[in-house]
């Protein structure tokens, strides 16, 4: 297998190939949880994407330190915390970022309840499926790769604020729906 590191293409040995496959499997399995964790700790989606990229690089570099695959999520969360705190420190001068103690409290919340958040993400599919056509269109547009809310709002002849609020409303509907789905599943 050939992977790119910076500008260089690197040929991997069979052992490295196997390690890389294992890493990819674990990373893909937990990517959503890591994304959610990063999003909780980092104020904007753009910053979150940047932190996720840095996290992925560190995880791959230090993958050899992972003792057991089942510990991947906890181990990766540790890396996320470190990177998110570093990002917050870097951006503290020009952004409104939370203090370290608040970030630590938020990290503990996600870390301790990671399974519950995973269940909510799974329930989300059913809830997204129940949205009306207009809401679904708005959601698809807002979360399309590279989407810019101000541009979408201008195209629709609306203010960015009203677009954000409509999006907020849909998110709240989805949050309520996922709770109902999980409550129903709990008794089934």
């Amino acid at each position, binding site marked *: 297998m050939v992977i790119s590191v910076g500008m260089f293409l690197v040929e991997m040995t069979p052992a490295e190939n196997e390690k890389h496959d294992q890493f990819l499997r674990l990373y893909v399995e937990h990517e959503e949880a890591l994304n*959610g964790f990063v999003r909780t700790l980092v*104020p*904007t989606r753009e910053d979150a994407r940047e932190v996720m990229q840095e996290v992925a690089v560190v995880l791959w570099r230090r993958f050899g330190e992972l003792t057991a695959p089942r510990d991947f999520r906890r181990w990766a969360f540790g890396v996320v915390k470190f990177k998110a705190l570093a990002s917050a420190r870097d951006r503290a001068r020009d952004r409104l970022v939370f203090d370290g103690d608040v970030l630590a409290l938020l990290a503990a919340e996600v870390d301790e309840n990671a399974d519950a958040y995973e269940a909510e993400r799974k329930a989300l599919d059913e809830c997204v499926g129940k949205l009306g056509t207009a809401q679904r269109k708005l959601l698809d547009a807002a979360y399309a790769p590279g989407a810019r809310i101000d541009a979408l709002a201008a195209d629709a002849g609306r203010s960015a604020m009203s677009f954000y*609020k409509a999006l*907020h409303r849909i998110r709240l509907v989805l949050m309520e729906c996922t709770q109902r789905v999980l*409550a129903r599943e709990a008794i089934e």
Partner: protein
Amino acid sequence: MNADYEKLELIRRYLDGMGTAEDHRALQGALRNDAALRRQFARYTNLDAALGSGRLAVAPTNVVVPFGSRGTSTGWFSWRPLTAAAAAFVLALIVTQVVHARLAERREIASVTAASGAGQFFGANGALRDALSIGAKLAAGDSIETRSCDATAALALRGGGKITLGGNGSLRILEGDGFGAASRWNLTRGALWVSPDARGVVVQTQNAVVEANGAQFDIQTTAEGTLLRVNSGQARVRSLLGGGDLEVAAGQQTAVGMRHEEPPVVVAQPQPVEQWTCSFSPAVQPAYGKWLPARDSSAMRLSTAPLLWPRPKLDPVLLHVASFRVFRDSKSPVRASADSTLVFRGVTTRPHMVRFGFSTQKVRGVFAGKFEIDVPAKDLGPVGSEWEVRLPLSKFHPLPPRLADSPDGLELVDVYALTRIEDAGLELSHIELTHKQ
């Protein structure tokens, strides 16, 4: 004074990169002290991240489900004196109408007849209006919200009857039958009142479905569940956590909780009382504020939490609020009378005027207004020492829109103390309503 909406709005502004420094301070302070808000925040970001990481590409799209066929529904037709054939005909007609309404055009199900305070309209097509305009027509998929505890909205149903949404409420029209004889609503937050001439009303909350046909009832939702009170006619309620239907008759109520192990039971509505002492028990979640441990031999103390208070056509104002919902603390409705007195004990660590207030509703009825009084810092005594203020209700002044001139005969909904803009370190340790015998 349910502050969920304000907190979620702070979260939204922060995550959308639109928050001000003041928003940021308020949100950070609240997150530092409120574990429930941290969970809410993490749930919001978790959902945002999941939507942004490709889940939408694989999620199914909407399928129109016929009225009444969902897992949470309803049984409304079984009540009606219709033959099976007639019911089938009506059902088929409704299905046709609903599908037609979804696919072709907006069909009016209700219209706004009155609105006060800050409100919002969210159209099924994504339209958003920062006010509820009188005469606005509502169709399936539309939502309205009241954004403060003193806001209300009254809706006239197309088939007759009225639904009133109380403060800090959110109500969405799920479906209507197309000819005004049945409608289905989702009360996601707050309280609503349905008039007895409303036909075929089905209201779904976060954990219950209520159905009624020609009954006067009200529903209150809180984090603990759903409270249904029926004042005339009869309603049927079903817990979404399982169990069968319960019939609730006039003069009865039932509380549907969030725990599967505690099935709802129907009981007689308690009679109002005219005296009340707040328990200051940590088991009772304050509407706003945070618990502090007892000092010396006193009870627990409730300190303030920051709240951005929305104002129609004005910037929101930052308040520091400690507030209790009276109905959560008292098993019976607490009724105010002209010669009642509210007693507050507390401390402030900085000299500042404190505003005391309470919200009311008609006993078993709709929101009836807020009443407030300001107490200057000099009347509270030395900073850091415990003060007691005894405030006759007759001295409180009604706030616009002045729904009642006096609180006499009204039910207390919440009681609060606050400082505007500055945090004066306000803590409450005792609240009591006394009544001159």
